[in-house]
Every structure is written in C-alpha cells, then in structure tokens.
C-alpha cells in the first residue's frame, strides 16, 4: 500500500448475493484499513447501477464512485461475468479494478474471470492478507489490464 492510496480510503463496492458472505466480507474489510467505505449490492443490476451512477445510486455524494469492486460471480438477475463484461465495455470505467470472488478455484471460473478482464480473483472465505496483497498488487492510477493473460 503506497502513500498515494494511504491518502484516502478506498471506496469498495461489494457485489454479493449471499448475505452471510457479505457479512463475512464486511468483517474482513474492517481489518483492512484502506477500505474505509463499503457499499453492498446484492445483484448484478444493482452493481451496474452503482458503478455507472444511475438508478438508485445517482447520488454520488451518497454513493461515491467505487475505487474497487469485489464481485461475486454467481448473482441473480445478472451474472457476475456479465457485470464484468458490461463494465469493461464502458469507456468511462473499463479500468475500474474489479476483483472476482469465487467459492471455488474452478479453472472455469478463473479462466472466465480473466477472459472478462477481471483484475484478480480471490476465493471465499476471503483472507485479509490475500486481499491486501491483491490490492497492493494493483497498480493504482495507471492503466493496467491484467485480465485475459
């Protein structure tokens, strides 16, 4: 975590349909000092609304634009991969760092995640160290697409 990111806390958007898992993650992030603000949506549609600042999340003061999205793949209403796709296609936020949460390390999921240009994945239950490393690994403020490699 470099000084730049220390400057202000990361706005992390959590997209997760399982409430228990969401709770677990929330608690994990409590230990993650960089994540000061956390918003949780439960489906893909809501996720996109939030990311693009539309629908219910038009108010950016209330719902600031996320710096990082933690995205579960299995979502109702819009699959995680679709969310990825949509985000990546959009010019404004296709650089938005997105980390995929997965219950398994099935190769299919990993491959798919990277194909859809996720910046990384982490399996649940999320280990805070792993997350920290991941976030550190991301190159903030610079264009970088790790996905698909």
């Amino acid at each position, binding site marked *: 975590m470099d000084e730049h990111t220390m400057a202000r806390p990361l706005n992390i958007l959590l997209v997760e*349909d399982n409430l228990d898992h969401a*709770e*677990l993650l929330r*608690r994990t992030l409590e230990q993650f000092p960089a994540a000061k603000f956390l918003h949780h949506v*439960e489906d893909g549609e809501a996720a996109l609304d939030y990311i693009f600042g539309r629908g219910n999340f038009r108010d950016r003061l209330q719902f600031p634009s996320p710096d990082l999205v933690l995205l579960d793949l*299995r979502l*109702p209403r819009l699959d995680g991969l679709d969310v990825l796709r949509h985000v990546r296609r959009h010019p404004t936020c296709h650089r938005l760092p997105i980390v995929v949460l997965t*219950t*398994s390390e*099935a190769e299919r999921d990993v491959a798919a995640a990277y194909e859809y240009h996720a910046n990384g994945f982490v399996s649940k239950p999320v280990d805070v160290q792993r997350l920290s490393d991941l976030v550190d690994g991301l190159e903030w403020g610079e264009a970088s697409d790790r996905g698909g490699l």
Partner: protein
Amino acid sequence: MAQQQRTAETVQRAILHDAAHAIVATDLTGLIISFNPAAEKLAGWSAAEVVGKVTLASFHPPEELAAQARLLSERLGRPVAPGIEALLAEARAGLPSATEWTCLRKDGTRLPVLLSVSALRDEQGEVFGFAAFAADITERRQADARLQEREAQYRLLFENMVTAFALHEIICDEQGHPVDYRYLEVNPAFERLTGLTARELEGKTVSEVLPAVEKYWIEIFGQVALTGKPAAYENFFADLGQYYDTWVFSPKHGQFAVLFSDVTARKRAEESLQESRRLYADVVASIPLGVYRVSARPEEDVLEYVSDRFCQVVGLPRERLLEDERVVLGIIHPEDRQSFLDANNQAYDQRSQFQWEGRATVRGQLRWLRFESHPTQLPDRPPFWTGVAFDVTDRRDVEEALHQQHSLLEGALQATADGILAVSSEGRITSYNRQFLELWRVSKEILDTHDTMALADYILQQLSHPAAMQARIRNFNDTSRADTFDTLEFTDGRVYERFSRPQMVAGRVVGRVWSFRDVTARHWAVASLRESEHKFKMLFESTNDAILIMDEKVFVDCNRVAETMFACKRDQIIGRTPAELSPERQPDGRLSTEAAEKVRSVLAGAPQFFEWILARRDGTLFNAEVSLTGFELRGQKVIQVIIRDITARKLAEAAQHEAEQLYRTLVNTSPDGILLLDLTGRVLYSSPKALELLHGSAETELPSLPGALRFVGRQERHQALALFRGALVGIFPPNVRLLMRRSDGHEFTAELNGTLLRDGLGVPWGILVIVRDVTDRQRQEDELKSKNAELERFTYTVSHDLRSPLITIKGFAGALLADAAAGRTGRLNEDLNRILQAADKMSDLLNGLLQLSRVGRMVNPPTQVPMNKLVADVLELLAGSIAQRGATVTVQCDLPPAYGDPQRLQEVVQNLIENALKFSPPDRSPEIEIGSKSVGDKTVYFVRDHGRGIESRFHETIFGLFNKLDPRSDGTGIGLALVRRILEFHGGSIWVESAGAGLGATFYFTLPGRKALSTSPLNG
C-alpha cells in the same frame, strides 16, 4: 695369076677394110704403113693422119710402154727399150704377144685394147714389118668387170645367202658308180646347217665328214652330177626339226651343187594353209549357206566356185554350174527372173552388193532363194562377187504365216473387247487397239508420241492408288519372262484387270503385250461375294462357338471349335445325327431323338434356339445353347447349327443365383434399410426395412421411383445434397447422422453408410445407402450428452451451492474464534445462528438432490393417468396454502389423460402450482389456471398465473438447478429443475411464457402418449 693376085688383094683389102679388128701394119721400126678403118675407128685418127707419120707407140701411154718394157726385159732376159720396142719385142723374137694396152685416141679418151703383134716375114723369113691387131676390149673389159662384179656379187650372195650351198664333185668307182663325193665349196649357210666349217668340209669327202649320210643320196647326187639332170626334193632334218627344200643341179659334169632352203616356216605356213583350206572347206561344207564366187565379165558371168551347199541350194550339179552360170537363171521362176537380172545388172554397174530374193524351182519344188554377194576388185582381174545363197523358203513361209497371223491378230486385236498394248523391249509402243484408247481414255496423240513414260503418267493419274501401281505401270517394257496379273483400281471406282505377257520371238523376249479388261462390275460383285464368303469362313473358323452344318439328318461339316468342344475329330462328327451327340435323355425327360423335331421346324422356316445337353466323345456331358438356322448352300437346304458350351455359364448362373439368394436374405433380414440409388438420386430399390423406415410399412407399393431427397426435410436438404455429391465421387463418411422424413412426415434420425457402386469396368452406376434408424439412439445419445452436461452443471452447481453454506460456516466459525479470542461475545448468537442456518441450508440442498436423483428411478409403472383427478388431488393437498393466500384455481374439466408415473406427475403439478402461489402478485390474490390445449397431435398442459411474471432472460435459467429467481424466497430452487426432469423422463417437455415482470407467467408442459413412452427409457 694376076687374077688370083687381084682377087687376093681384093680379099685382103676387103678383109682389112671390113675387119672388125683394127689392123695396123708397120715397118720394122714400127712406123705405121697401113691403118684400117677399124683402126681409124678405134684410135680416132684417120689413116691419112697416121700412115707414115707415127709409130704404134704413139697410141699408148708412155708409162705403159715403160712398164711393158720392164716386163719384157725380164721375160726376154735382155733390156727392152720403152717405147715401140716394148710393142715389138716379142714379135721380133717370134714370140706371140697379146697384150692389153690402153689406146690413146685422138679426142683424148682412152680405150683398152688387146694388141696382138706379129712379125711380117718375107719369103726368106726375114721380118720386114709387123702386123698389129687391136681389139677394142672395152666391152670385154666391161664384161670382165661385169663378170668380176658378178663374181663379187655372186660371192656376196654365196657368202650371205640363207640357203645353204655346197659344191661337190662326185667320186665314182671303176665302174663309174658314184660312191662318194668331195666337198669343193660350201657357203656359210651350209656351214651353219651342218655345223661344220668350210675348212673342215672343203676338200673332204662326205664319207669322211658325214659318214652318216645314206648311200642312196650319193647315188642321187651322182646321177645329177653325171647326167646333169637336176633334182629337187624335200628333206626333213629331224634333229633340227626343220624342213628343207633341196635342189641339186650339176654346173659341170662330175660336179653337183646342192642348195638347201629352210622351208620350215613355209612348210608350216603350208600346213596352216592346208589346215585353213580344210577348215574353210569344212565351213563351207557345213554352213547352211551356199558359197559361190562369180566373176563378172563383160559378156558373161562365170561361176568360179560353188560350194557343195550351193549346189544343194540351187539343186544343180557343180559341173553344170561352173560350165554355165546361166543355168541358175534357168531355175528361177519366170516372174522373178526380171528382178534377178535387174539386181544383177545394178550390182555390176555400180560394183555394189548383189542382193536378190525370189522363187526358184529346186529339184522340182518351188523354193524361195536368196543370193547375197559382195564385189572384190583386184588389179588385172575382172571383178568377182563372193557371196552366199540360201534357201529362204521356210523363212518366207514363216513370214507368210506370220503375216497371216498378224492380220489375224490385228483383226482379233481390233475385235476384242480388251484393250491391248504392245511395247517393245526398248520401250517403244509397237501396237495398240482402239479399245485400249477407250479404256484408258488416251488420245491417239499421246500414243503416237510412242513415249511410254508419258503414257504411264497419264494412266497413273487415273488410278486410285497410283503409288502402289507406279512401279508396275512404269515397266511397260519389262523384259522379264514372267506373266503378270494386276487389278487396277481407279479413283472413280472403275476396276480393270491388267494382264501382260512377254512377247517372245525364237525364245527371246522382244517386248511385252498388255491387255486390259474393264471388270468393274464383276469386280465389285466378286469382291462382295468374296467378302461374304470370307466373312463366313472367318466366322466359321474364328468364332468361339462351334458351328456345324447339317442336312436334314446328319452333320455334314463342322469347324475346329466343334472338334474341340466334342473332343473328337471332324470326321467323327460328320455323318452323325444330333441324337448321337447327346445323352439318351434331356433333363426334362425327353428323348434326345426328339431333336429331329426341331430340325424339321427349322427346315420349315422357324429358327430354333434352345438349351440342350450334349455328350462329348468320351461320354461326358455338357450344357449347351443351340441355335438352328436354315439356309441354302449351293442350292441345297442345310441347317447351320451354332453350339455354345454354357457349362461355365450355368455354373456361374447357379452361383449367382445362390449369391442372389444370400443377398436377398441378407437384405431382407437386415435390421437396417438398404437403398439403391441411381446416379441421379432416384431410388431404384428399397429393401423391406428401408420401405418401413421411409414409408412406414414394408408392404408399400412404390408408384414411381422417388428421389431420395424426398426423405429429408428442407433444412436437411443441403446436408443431404452434400452427402450425395460426395457419394458420387466415392466419398461417403461413415455413420453420418441425418434427420430424415418418412413419407408420412414422421421424422427420424438416420445413421447412413453409403458406398459408390462400380461395375466391372470401374464405372459408377449407383449408390448403395444403408439406413439405420437411430432416433432412439440419437435421443439416447442426446440424452446422455445432456445428462452429462447436466451432470457437469449439476456437479458444478452442487459444489458451488453446497460450498456456499460451507463458506458461511467456516467464515463465521472463524469469526467466532476471533471474537472468542478477543473476548468479544456480542456477535456470538448471531454468528452461531448463521452457522446453524447454513448447515440447515446444506441439509435442504442435499435432500433436494436426493429427490432429484430419485426421479431417475421409476417408482410406479406407467399407467394411464386421468389428469383431472390428479389435479384435484394436488389441489386438495395444497388446500391450506391456497386458502392462506386466498388464491383462485380454475381447472379445465376435460384434461386429456396422460400416461406415466402418477406420483411423479403429481409432483410436477404440485410444484407448478406451488410456484404459481409463490410468485403471486404483491397486490392481489393469485389467480391460477390449469388447462390443456391441442397443438398438432400433441396435448399441451399449462399452469397459468397472473403473478410477478418472469423476465424473458430468465425463462430458461429458472429451470436450472438451484436457480432461484428470488434468492430470498423459500425453497431450494430445485423445484422447476425437478419438474423438467420428470417431464423429460416421460418424454415430454416444459417451458414458460411470460410477458415480463408483473405480467404473470404460464408454464406449458407436454406429456406424450403411450406410444412415445414405450420407446422412452422408462421402459428399460
């Protein structure tokens, strides 16, 4: 006395005057006192000039006088003074003198004289004068000189003559018989002849030097020497090998001279001449010509010589001919005499060759004679003609005959239809007829050029194969002895026969005669006939079938194949009846002798074709195909029998039949359909199974040949065509799946295997397609595939969905631990509850899985299920929930019965109704409809609600395992998955239609009838 004295004086004077000799009288001193005319003549002085003036000595040169004086001095022994004394000394002495002196004449010339001086004495015998007689001895001298010359010449001759000469004197005995002779003189030739030199011979006798000489020679020589009669004879000296003419003569009595002439050459020449003469005589005798020589004199001709032959030719004896040559004229035919005389005269006048031919009567017969002679002119002789006479009667006859023949020939030549051309060996056209011109369309001009080459070219142009005939056409003057025969074909279809033969005279080829005949019509007719005959012959011999000819009873001919076929020789077939070449009975039981019936039919005009068993010579039998045809051969009715051994074919047929049976069996019993297509795609043949597959029943009668494309739907057409096209080039992938359509529209999945069929030559003629109905298998495979996919999804889903609660458990357990360690207890209950809930969730999930798995097992056997009753039962079961929600359920009353497991079907309906209740509208009571409708021949049931509806993107996902539209809702999310599973198991399907959120949803499902069920996995 005076008279006597006067007479004596006259006589004296006469003598003196007329004497031929010069008489000069002188006185004692030599002074001339008398000088006769002869002396005058001799000396050239007149008497007056010399008498009393000069002495005798003045006529003589002083040197002679001196010489004579010296001579006389010696002889007389006393000096004699030169001068007159030299003349007179001898006479004075009384010695006779005759001396040759040179007389000096007046004109200075000199004369040799012989002077004879005698002393004149008176009666006392006292010399008172001298008388000198002088004779001109010029002539004598000349004669002497001549004599000497002759002598010299003679000597020369003697020495040099080739002829050996020897002079001898004969030696006789006392009786006067010659006994020896002596060589007196021999010349060098003689020396050479004898090999003895003159020295050795001269003076010797023959007995001394040549004792070998026979005595009779001595006799002969003696005779000559004594009689003076010369002798001549020939000698042959054997040792010298030479002939000598010996000439013996006697120059003087007692002497004989012998001359030997070497006449060897002459002898030889003579012998040759004799020989020649003999030869000549032989020739003359042997030649068939009479030889004669006639000398032409102004008045008459004289036959100087006639050979025997001549006499024979003219039929007159030699004596008469030589006596009077006019007898020749006598035998000549009166009409020809004039020509004879004319020829004769002409020859004589012009000194030219005499030639005449004419008739004569010889020995009573009329003959033709010919005389030919050439003149020879010798000097001093009248010219003579030497020639030959011969009888040319035969020749004339021949000529006459020839002439007759010629005119006959000429007539024939012009009368014949053939074109004739005669060409001499040198290439000149000697004869031709009109027809030749016509046949060859030759103008007279070309022929008149006598240019055979031009003619040849002209002819060649008209021929159809000029090159082939060129060589033969061009040799119009072929000098061979062969006859030639050609057929000439023309470009315009004419055909000529050309025949030539040499023209011979006396065994020698003098030319060639060509004849041409237009045989166009005949040629083509013959050619056709020949062709036919040839064809027949060819056929007869070269065919692979046996051909036999028979009359109404027996075989009269057969070809080689027949011999082979019956394994016997031709003569073992000829004469036999067909029955004899067959077994006793035919397979159908008929006697082979009934073959005669067939023969009769053929003769009646009906050709026969049938199979028959024949027997070979060795008794073995064979199948044959027999064809009988009747025809006429040289006016006779015969039957042509063609036999083909079909044993092999029969076997092949039997084998083929078996094969066909086998094939048919295979085809008919194969569980797969077999189609035979032609190359255009038409179905030529369908096996019963194929008929079943494509038409629904194996007993279908096909009205026409349908195209194979009829059996595929429109969407599959492209694939089918691609397959077909591939098949045409021999490419047919194995086990191709194609959705096919029966003629009744029923679709089935076919597995196709095909192959391109080729005939014996490799030419494609059709496509064989094996059709296997793999609908079931396809479905099974599809099912398996989908099941596998599902299983995979299932596994994935399960692992995922089961993992979820596990994560919760693990997570919160960890959190609890962390809290416990930190002494935080605030979230203890909450966390533990979460854990328990998660565990429950897992349990539910597992139960749901179990339920799902049970669907694979049929609990109850399928049966007819009355749907109305089933629905009623379900509604009863859910009565509580329905009432709780205040829902209205409407059920169609005539739901068609379904076929399947009642319990399972109940679960389906129950699930659907429960879902409808779950997704009821938020603001009003749910309204649920249950009904059915017909779509085509299927029944579609539906459960409709007017609840929250389902967005279209979820229309499929909702059937997914554990998919919950609303995660917060109750249930495990497997309900619809279960329902689908059950329906699929029954052979049906389910789908949802919903206009969208808030617009309700209708779930449609199908349950196929009994039949489908029978093929479904439910049964096995």
